[in-house]
Structure formats: structure tokens, C-alpha cells
């Protein structure tokens, strides 16, 4: 996500106190033609509250407020953002406010005239998801016939001279094809390829046992990625999102709670991350009632796990003094695995619950059953 690095340039220290956000994740709708079993959306996307989608005028105001708050990057996502009929107006609003816009899309649909209109409205970047490099397996994972249309959509994005990112979430059923996925991205003319090892939030939690790769699969995958990076250089930037179940220290989830990113759900609820609505007792604010700045700086939810003062042991006196770097890991994962959102993320080797992770790894390494475990597909109706 929004990153600040020091390549060829001197870093400027961020202002003291609460930083301003760099990234707005706008989940425009939870409607989506795909049914990916690792979707990061909440498992209750079918709930009534999410059907009351924020009107375009409210989104336009939110984009203006975000820009005033220091947001530089806007991710237009969902669900499928193209399912919103006002998508072109929303991109126009982003452009007017100087935001760098990314359309995070399944490319279903991706009609030429509409995409040309998005280009004219100033859309900066297109990210298209792929589920596999093999058409039949891709469609099986996504739960719908999509592969050929995605290939055509990628060609259209190139034709219009959009910088193109291909995103592929990796798991047990596709990680062995990582080499061919990289070559597919190369053929499609992508500038970037995000190989995101599944993070176990939302629907991925339900499907964890079916999705989690073995350590051997991961090691082979990583080896291929490293070799391909060397071969491709700057022509195709390959991001490898670490599989944190196989790490000994947690990730700084979202760059820290309420540190870099702010997320608005289809109904206008505002969260520090995709899964935060799962935390019981967290009082959610809505952009229909308050400004983004008020919510960012003053709300109980955004301040709940900000910085390090809220931490318990072992984070509070971290043996390797890493709490300012990883912020205790992921709050939602801590909640899901320990029942306490303020606990240390069990991915951490010092967590008293680390055995949960170790046993999940052990289970993933057990011999493959005849038939792979079935997926529970993302669905609006059943949820």
C-alpha cells in the first residue's frame, strides 16, 4: 500500500503525534460477480446494512475530505466497483481532488466505452484480479466463468495506456503455478504483479484449511519469485506479500492501526481495516454523520489501538523491542485466534497463543486428501 521509501531521495520525517492518512480504501459496493473463497470482505456482506449504499454525492464529499486530510492514494474497490453506475463521476471527483486513483477490479464487467470514459475522467491505474493462470482452474477458484474476459480486459487497459497491475491471491490450489502466473502477467503487459499470499480475514478464515499451503509449497514459490524478479528487473515489479502464518514476527497490519489508511464500507461506515467491523464493542462511525477528519483524529474506534499505549504483555515490553515496528500485528487476527482484539497477534513467536499458528502449519503439512477440501464460496445471499 502507500509506502514511503528512500530510493534516491531523502526522507522527510512525518509530523509528531497522529499522522495523517495516505490511503483511502473506498469499498463502493459488496456486489461482485466473483465468489472467491478468500475474499477480504466481511462474511456478512449479505446483511441489510450493506445494501444501503452510500450515494455518489456522499462519496464525492468523502473524497474531498480525504484529500484535505492528506490522503494521496485512492483505491476504488468493493466488491466490484464497476457495479456502481456512477463510477465515472466518482473518478472525476477523485481527479478534481488530486488523488491518485486505482480501480481494483475483477474486470467483470469492463466495457470499452465505460473504460474509455474512466480514462478521460483521469483514472490513474487499473488493477485486475486473476485467480490462476490456467483458465479452467481460475474459473473454478473464482466460482464463475471469467478468465477469458479478464484477458480481454487486460488488453483493453493496455490499449488505453493505463499502467496495469495484476493481482493474484496465492493459496494451496494455485501457488504451485506461480511461475506460470508470472509469465501470464508478463504476456498481459502488466507493470506490477501482486502475489498476495492469503491473509486469513473475512471469507479466508472460513476457508483456511482449504487455502493454507504447505511450507514446502511456499518455499518453492518464493524461490521462483526471487529468480523471476532477477530476470525481469524493472519491467515487471513483483510484490510478494508474506504468508504470515509462516513468519515468527507479525506484520505491521495496515502499517499500524489508524496510521496510514482509512477504509469506508459501502454503507459509509469507517474502519481502520477491512476486518475491523468484526471486533465486538468497537463503535463504528459513519461518514453520513461525521467528517472523515473528525473520525480519523477523534473517534473511539480509530484511537482504540493507535500507537503502542494500549498494548498488553508481551508487546508492552517486547523482548526484541519491535512493538513500534509491527504495532503488535493484526488486531482482527488476534481477536479471531485468541478472542481478545488487544492480545498480541499469535503469529508472533512470543505470543502465549503461538501454538495455534504452529498447529495450523502442522495440519497444512499433513498428506493431501484424495479430493481437495471444498471451498465455501463468497456469496451475498447465503451470508
Amino acid at each position, binding site marked *: 500500500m502507500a509506502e514511503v521509501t528512500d*530510493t534516491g*531521495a531523502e526522507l*522527510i520525517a512525518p509530523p509528531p503525534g497522529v499522522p495523517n492518512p*495516505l490511503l483511502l480504501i473506498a469499498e463502493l459496493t459488496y456486489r461482485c460477480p466473483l465468489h472467491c473463497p478468500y475474499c477480504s470482505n466481511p462474511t456478512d456482506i449479505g446483511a441489510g446494512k450493506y445494501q444501503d449504499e452510500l450515494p455518489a454525492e456522499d462519496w464525492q464529499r468523502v473524497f474531498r475530505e480525504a484529500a*484535505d486530510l*492528506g490522503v494521496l492514494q485512492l483505491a476504488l474497490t468493493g466488491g466490484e466497483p464497476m457495479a456502481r453506475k456512477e463510477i465515472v463521476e466518482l473518478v472525476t471527483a477523485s481527479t478534481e481532488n488530486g488523488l491518485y486513483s*486505482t480501480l481494483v477490479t475483477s474486470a467483470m464487467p469492463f466495457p470499452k466505452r465505460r473504460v474509455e470514459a474512466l480514462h478521460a475522467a483521469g483514472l490513474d491505474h487499473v*488493477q485486475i484480479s486473476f485467480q490462476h493462470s490456467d483458465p479452467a482452474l481460475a474459473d473454478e477458484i473464482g466460482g464463475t466463468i471469467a478468465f477469458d474476459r479478464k484477458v480481454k480486459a487486460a488488453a483493453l487497459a493496455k490499449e488505453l495506456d493505463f499502467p496495469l*497491475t495484476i493481482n493474484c491471491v496465492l493459496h494451496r490450489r494455485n501457488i504451485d503455478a506461480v511461475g506460470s502466473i508470472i509469465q501470464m502477467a508478463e504476456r498481459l503487459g502488466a507493470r*506490477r504483479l501482486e502475489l498476495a499470499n492469503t491473509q486469513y480475514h473475512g471469507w479466508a478464515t472460513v476457508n483456511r484449511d482449504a487455502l493454507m499451503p504447505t511450507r514446502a509449497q511456499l518455499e518453492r514459490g518464493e524461490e521462483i519469485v526471487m529468480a523471476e524478479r532477477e530476470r525481469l528487473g524493472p519491467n515487471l515489479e513483483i510484490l510478494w506479500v508474506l504468508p504470515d502464518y509462516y513468519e515468527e514476527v507479525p506484520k505491521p497490519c495496515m502499517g499500524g492501526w489508524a496510521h496510514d489508511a482509512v477504509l469506508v464500507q459501502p454503507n459509509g461506515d469507517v474502519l481502520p481495516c477491512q476486518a475491523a467491523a468484526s471486533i465486538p464493542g468497537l463503535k463504528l462511525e459513519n461518514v453520513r454523520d461525521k467528517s472523515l477528519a473528525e473520525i480519523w483524529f477523534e473517534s473511539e474506534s480509530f484511537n482504540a489501538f493507535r500507537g503502542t499505549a494500549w498494548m498488553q504483555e508481551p508487546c508492552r515490553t517486547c523482548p526484541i523491542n519491535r512493538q513500534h515496528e509491527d504495532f503488535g500485528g493484526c488486531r482482527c487476527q488476534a481477536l479471531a485466534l485468541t478472542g481478545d482484539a488487544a492480545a498480541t497477534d499469535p503469529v508472533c513467536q512470543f505470543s502465549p497463543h503461538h501454538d495455534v499458528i504452529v498447529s495450523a502449519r502442522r495440519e497444512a503439512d499433513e498428506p493431501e486428501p484424495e479430493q481437495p477440501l471444498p471451498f465455501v464460496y463468497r456469496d451475498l445471499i447465503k451470508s
Partner: protein
Amino acid sequence: MAPVFTRPTLATGVRLRHDKVRDQTVLLFPEGALVLNDTAIEVLELCDGERTLDDIAAVLSERYEGADVKDDVAELLGGIGERGLVVDADG
């Protein structure tokens, strides 16, 4: 290895922007932002795909009383070019 440029220009989808909230200039690109120092800003503003590396160095040298900046310019662009953010207009 860091790329060497003839007529450098920002890659498609890469742009400079002043960030008024933090009062700094940033390079924006797909899903990232890079905070630039004053020298980097000056160099990137001259990367129009027309000027050669020598032209850019000459402009800056004139601004800085004849200092020889060509190596610095090449190094800076090489670093940013390694990430695919600057490309060669001729390439």
C-alpha cells in the same frame, strides 16, 4: 543493475504532486508515494523525454554555479529507474 538513461521521462502513470497537507513534493505511482528532496524534484521536473542526461546536468550546473552534477543526476535517476518509475523516451 541501475538503468542508464538517454532521454529520461516519468513512466506512464507516474506523476509529481505537491502535498499541501505535509508541505512536501511527492512522486505518485501505482499504490505508492515517494517523498522527494529538492534536488530530486529539480531533476524530475527536467525529465521531459526531450532533454538528454547531459542537457539536464547542464541546466542544473548553470543553476549551481558550474558544479559538475552529471554523476549525481545519473545516480538519482538510476535509483528511481530501478523501480520502473523513470523510463527512456528513446527506449
